């Protein structure tokens, strides 16, 4: 069966005064129906821009410079805005990190959800509100009918996030892009929201692109993971395999720098020296090279291609880490 979403060699650049930032620089990925793909990396790696490219919701100056985005075989990259409006909501929807800035503070919650239904489905106001109530119930909102007339500021962070999820699901999308959906929430509420997303994706057979910097969230919720660094995919594998058989030095370094609850406190954490490269002028060699403890001369000359022993586990590195991942102390 063809994948639900197929991205091939996507390039998304952002024109800025200082130059053109190559935020996404040749990214390929695919998501199957009902699958959860984790896209993990730190700030500036391009993971959010990848998600926004699928939705064609780019910041000013942003444009798709190359590559293809196929949703159910249909090419989105060159689609005009009028057609894209029908894709959004119906086929693919997005939820963001901070519901307080994503929800309209001057509109009642019910009206915002209904608006989404009316725009993407051309339903009547009454039908749209009915759907809003239905979908609020679906996301576990207590007393959904009463909540319709609440304003976002009257709700807690967790409830606002449920509203955002309800808005995203109102038109039955097959793909949900969740960009740092729980980062701004308390950890006990985070668990509730992650459980809700898992439950919904099972029930609605929905695929999820889970964009986050949190390796713990990825470990628990993603079927497959792609690690991004400086606009590129550096490693891609099934989740258990990524943690057990880490190959890319950046993935390894990232995992070594996280304090874990079960570790002994006196081992210093590994910290990656330096900073990511300037993407308005990226090097033509390996982008992680200046910060990599295994770098060789070749790493400073050529860019390593994505490759691997099996198609299921790919990495872009000339000197991959081998063996199972073990916590290393400071180098």
């Amino acid at each position, binding site marked *: 069966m063809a994948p639900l979403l197929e991205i091939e060699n996507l390039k998304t650049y952002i024109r800025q005064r200082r130059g053109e930032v190559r935020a996404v620089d040749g990214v390929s990925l695919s998501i199957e129906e009902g699958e959860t793909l984790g896209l993990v990396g*730190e*700030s500036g790696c391009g993971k959010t821009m990848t998600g926004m490219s699928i939705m064609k919701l780019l910041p000013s100056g942003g444009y798709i410079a190359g590559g293809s985005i196929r949703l159910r075989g249909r090419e989105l990259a060159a689609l005009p805005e009028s057609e894209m409006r029908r894709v959004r909501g119906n086929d693919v929807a997005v939820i963001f990190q901070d519901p307080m800035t994503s929800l309209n503070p001057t509109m009642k919650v019910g009206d915002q959800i209904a608006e989404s239904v009316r725009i993407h489905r051309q339903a009547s106001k009454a039908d749209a509100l009915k759907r809003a109530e239905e979908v609020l119930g679906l996301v576990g909102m207590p007393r959904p009918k009463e909540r319709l007339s609440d304003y976002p500021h009257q709700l*807690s*962070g*967790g*409830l606002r996030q449920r509203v955002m999820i309800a808005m995203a699901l109102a038109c039955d999308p097959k793909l949900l892009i969740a960009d740092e959906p729980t980062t701004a929430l*308390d*950890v*006990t*509420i*985070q*668990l*509730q929201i*992650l*459980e809700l997303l898992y439950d919904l994706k099972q029930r609605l057979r929905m695929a999820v692109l889970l964009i986050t*910097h*949190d*390796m*713990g*969230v*990825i*470990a*628990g919720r993603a079927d497959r993971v792609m690690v991004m660094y400086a606009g590129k995919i550096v490693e891609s594998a099934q*989740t*258990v395999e990524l*943690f057990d058989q880490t190959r890319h030095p950046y993935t390894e*370094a*990232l*995992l070594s*720098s*996280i*304090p*874990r*609850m*079960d*570790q002994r*406190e006196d081992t*210093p*954490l*590994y*910290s*990656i020296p330096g*900073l990511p490269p300037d993407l308005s002028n990226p090097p033509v060699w390996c982008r992680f090279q200046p910060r990599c403890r295994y770098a060789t001369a070749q790493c400073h000359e050529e860019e390593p291609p994505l490759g691997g022993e099996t198609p299921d586990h790919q990495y872009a590195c000339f000197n991959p880490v081998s063996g199972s991942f073990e916590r290393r102390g*400071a180098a």
Partner: protein
Amino acid sequence: MTASPATLADSPLSDAKSPLVELRHLVKEFPVTAGAVLQRRIGSVKAVSDVSFSIGKGETFGLVGESGCGKTTVGRLMVGLEKPTSGELIFEGRDIAKLKGSERRRQRRDLQLMFQDPYASLDPRMRVGTIIKEPLQVQNIGTKEERTARVRQLLSEVGLSPKAMDFYPHEFSGGQRQRIGLARALSLNPKLIVADEPVSALDVSIRSQILNLMNSLQATHGLTYLVISHDLSVVKYLSDRIGVMYLGKLVELGPSHTIYEQPAHPYTLGLIQAIPEPDPKRERSKQIEPIKGELPSALNPPSGCRFRTRCPRAQAICAEQEPALRPFGSQHWAACHFPLQTPSAAA
């Protein structure tokens, strides 16, 4: 009514070996007003509601909890940015909350704050050198040359080039700004530093730099830390002992490994279980009972135990009587009528 411990030996205040600071029944109440014009007082929020604990010299004490638990307010009370509504803040034997004027100003040197947001806590119009020098100027310490020398020394201690003094904050990354914040906190040679969310605003791979730096500075300077964070893994990594707060109350207190391995309070357990660990096999085999519901209103907290509305073990008595902190072994305390383990015999 809280059952107050009869003697010091019956309370967590006796836990610290050589206490540097003791919080005794600290309360901070904020009035809540409504109405744009008349500002009628409609109630108050006890952000910190009768909190007592002590921190030993050279120790790292971690305060953890979620939104509205009061941990940030405790930090601010500690450094004098807020005045307690009632209770005592004993530092080296003196109640510093009652100090005034020049005495208070001089005492301020000993307790410094490292701010949460490296992007908002440094004045963008001041050069880094001036930012770090400012506390010395305010306290009238040293000559101009001595202050500049001190700034150079502090910058290299936090791993930055002394040249940094001539640059502006926006020219630095988040991690570097956090180092500048640490340098400023160290400038007055404090005895205790309150670090409020020291790494939350930083990228994951940068956090370890700051955590390692905090540990090494503590060893060099004999510092005492109060680390405040919602991130239990950061708190556990840095801290010797941890206090767990919920809606203004201290619900559990103990050594870090005890809190993690043998939590006595259902909220602490819920908090630990909710943390996603970077270990797929463990994450997927977790059998947990997530804490349900939402945080109740701080204006009108639940009667008796404040956690009861979300607690899977709550019974009638939890609504009638607020549980007091009881001992559960060495330095381990929890306030619960139905704890996860048997309390020690009464002292």
